[in-house]
């Protein structure tokens, strides 16, 4: 055990003070805090004694959330787990294994009672006593119920842990349940970072916010941090002008699709999914599903991702005025109808006729007046 800790201490971080401050300032700005908070974050992150211990539990999941965290570069994962937090237990990243790892988990939980952050990845099966997901012979349901009351806060990462995700899709054979539902009524604070996978930075920022201020960021009614999930993807989408102008890709590979038009008609769920993919993007290279030409499938939104068929058009939120107001939506509009053309022709004819008669009359009157 001790040897593991010393290992951590001896690894050179390879990050200069200047670079490190840059990272912290960037994090502050990204969270919508003033840049002056950068040094504060740096201070909090480097104060060795304050390094908050983190226990990372895995339920029914695919490890995609851990994978997405591996792709972050500011800060990098190693910087996070070696310098910013003390990752005491994570099945994917543990150096130890088996009983050794389990023992260390139990020890860390006892030592850091009420201080550690519990991260949960994956949904928790509750059917048949939770037998469908066991770690070291113990259902993950029990592990969660034992561990959570001792944690300072619980962060549920990924759609599985936050609302059920793939494992909860009908018919939900294992009774997959989100973490916050299991902890309902216990008073333990839970933060949801949904997404399949969520953007690593949404997780990092939440953790760094907690490390810096010792409290949780502002959450919405679904317990998601507002700085990341406050707006619909649609609101900041680069294809939004096409939506507003009525230019849509109607099929994969058609002219509209090749021209980068809006993917709404291909079933893009951006208009009903609250997330910041359209502004934050993934993998530090500005990529995300919509700019590769695939519609968003609403992975982070309960009742949308893994629930609504991929190509079913989304329910566009925030454009529909209240029912008391008159509707404004018209699609392609009608062409000429016989009645309309006849009416226009009659009126134009009447106007021309009246004009001709008037010209004649003016001539007659003029002669009279002369």
């Amino acid at each position, binding site marked *: 055990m001790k040897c593991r800790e010393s290992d951590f201490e001896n690894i050179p971080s390879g990050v200069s003070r200047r670079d490190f401050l840059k990272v912290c300032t960037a994090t502050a700005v990204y969270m919508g805090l003033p840049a002056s908070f950068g040094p504060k974050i740096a201070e909090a992150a480097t104060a060795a004694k304050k390094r908050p211990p983190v226990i990372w539990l895995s339920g029914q999941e695919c490890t995609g959330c851990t994978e997405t965290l591996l792709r972050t570069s500011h800060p990098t994962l190693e910087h996070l787990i070696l310098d910013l937090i003390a990752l005491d237990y994570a099945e994917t990243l543990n150096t130890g294994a088996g009983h050794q790892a389990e023992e260390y988990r139990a020890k860390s939980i006892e030592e850091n009672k009420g201080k550690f952050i519990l991260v949960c990845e994956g949904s928790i099966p509750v059917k048949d006593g939770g037998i469908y997901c066991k770690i070291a012979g113990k259902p993950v349901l029990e592990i969660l119920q034992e561990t959570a009351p001792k944690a300072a806060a619980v962060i549920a990462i990924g759609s599985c842990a936050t609302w059920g995700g793939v494992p909860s899709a009908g018919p939900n054979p294992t009774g997959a349940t989100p973490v916050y539902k299991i902890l309902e009524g216990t008073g333990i604070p839970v933060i949801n970072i949904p997404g399949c996978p969520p953007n690593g930075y949404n997780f990092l920022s939440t953790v760094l916010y907690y490390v810096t201020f010792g409290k949780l960021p502002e959450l919405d009614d679904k317990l998601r941090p507002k700085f990341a999930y406050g707006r619909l993807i649609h609101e900041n989408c680069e294809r939004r002008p096409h939506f507003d*102008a009525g230019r849509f890709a109607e099929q994969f590979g058609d002219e509209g699709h090749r021209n980068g038009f809006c993917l709404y008609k291909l079933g893009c769920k951006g208009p009903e999914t609250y997330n910041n993919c359209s502004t934050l993007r993934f993998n530090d290279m500005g990529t995300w599903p919509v700019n590769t030409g695939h519609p968003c499938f609403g992975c982070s939104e309960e009742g949308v991702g893994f629930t609504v068929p991929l190509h079913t058009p989304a329910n566009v939120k925030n454009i529909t*005025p209240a029912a008391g107001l*008159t509707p404004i939506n*018209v699609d*392609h509009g009608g062409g000429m109808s016989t009645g*309309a053309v006849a*009416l226009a022709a009659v009126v134009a004819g009447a106007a021309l006729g009246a004009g001709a008669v*008037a010209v004649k009359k003016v001539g007659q009157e003029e002669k009279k007046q002369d």
Partner: protein
Amino acid sequence: MSEAKPVGGKVFTGPFLFFLIITLIGIYFLSKRFIFGIGAVTNMNDGFPWGIWITYDVVVGTAFACGGYSMALLVYAFNNGEYHPLVRPALLASMFGYTLAGVSVFIDIGRYWQIYNVFLPWYTNFNSVLLEVALCIAVYIGVLWIEFSPTFLEAKSGTKSKVNKLMIFFIALGILLPTMHQSSLGSLMILAGNKLSPLWWTPMLPLTFLISAITMGYTVVIFESTISSLGFKRPFETNILTKLSLVIPILLVIFLVIRFGDILMRGQLGLAFNGDLQGNMFLLENILHILPLVILASATNRKSAKMLFLSACFLMLGGLLFRFNTYLIGFNPGEGFHYFPAIGEQFITYTIISAEILLYMIFVKKLPVLSGHGQAKV
């Protein structure tokens, strides 16, 4: 001030009833529009967000309503007091034209209940041509009512109003504002870019729209004076119109030189002879501009009420077509979009026109607008 007098006579006449019936039908469609939405009465769509309500009621409507502007320019800016008798009726027509254009915008805006946002300074987008048009027209409607207000006040008190002392300020505004927004109505379609046929799309649009609007102003004064004389059985104002009409061919020459010079320089004139709808409409539009130029170039014709009226009719049609071509006929937003005004949509436009005529009839009969000689019989 000339001695303007109310024309008098019965308000409920045959023509009045005819226009009243059209207005009532239009009110039926209007209530439908406000209850069930724009889609229920119009054929406007995402590709053609502007239909005839904008094209006719606003763009053509305000151009026809430039009489007040053009006359103010002539009488006050160039100090030609002799045309003063024509100012009041021109102002009246402008006032209705612009007010009803404002009403049309309100009808046309899908979420009309949010229109007040246009006037909130903290939402101002200084780069928006549309906002400039909206604010400019809104202010100009107010200015027109103030410019016309002495007529009400005279009718009420029988004396000259105190507003007259401040009038020079409003007259100046009344010249400035239309100069701004009539050109901007052209700028709006610069933004259409490739969607607009090269026969009409040009960076010169603001200039041609402005010159055309001023020309329309004088044309409408001739038209409306002649029709009033005919309708109310009053002598023609040919003497004064003859002088006024000299301005029109001059403006027309400037307009046509810019128009054709621009198209030739861009090398797009060939499109006019394609034989398609756009090409033919372009030819028709320009024939309707050249005919009045030919007619009014002759001094004899300028002295004939009939010829003046005929050329005014041609030119009004030409100006109307220029605007319809630029806003609708030359506009192609892409495949899958069609537009032809629906019956209800057309009726609302006819209602706007009818309402204008009805109000003009009432005002002229009840208020001192037309300079007084002759008795009304209709």
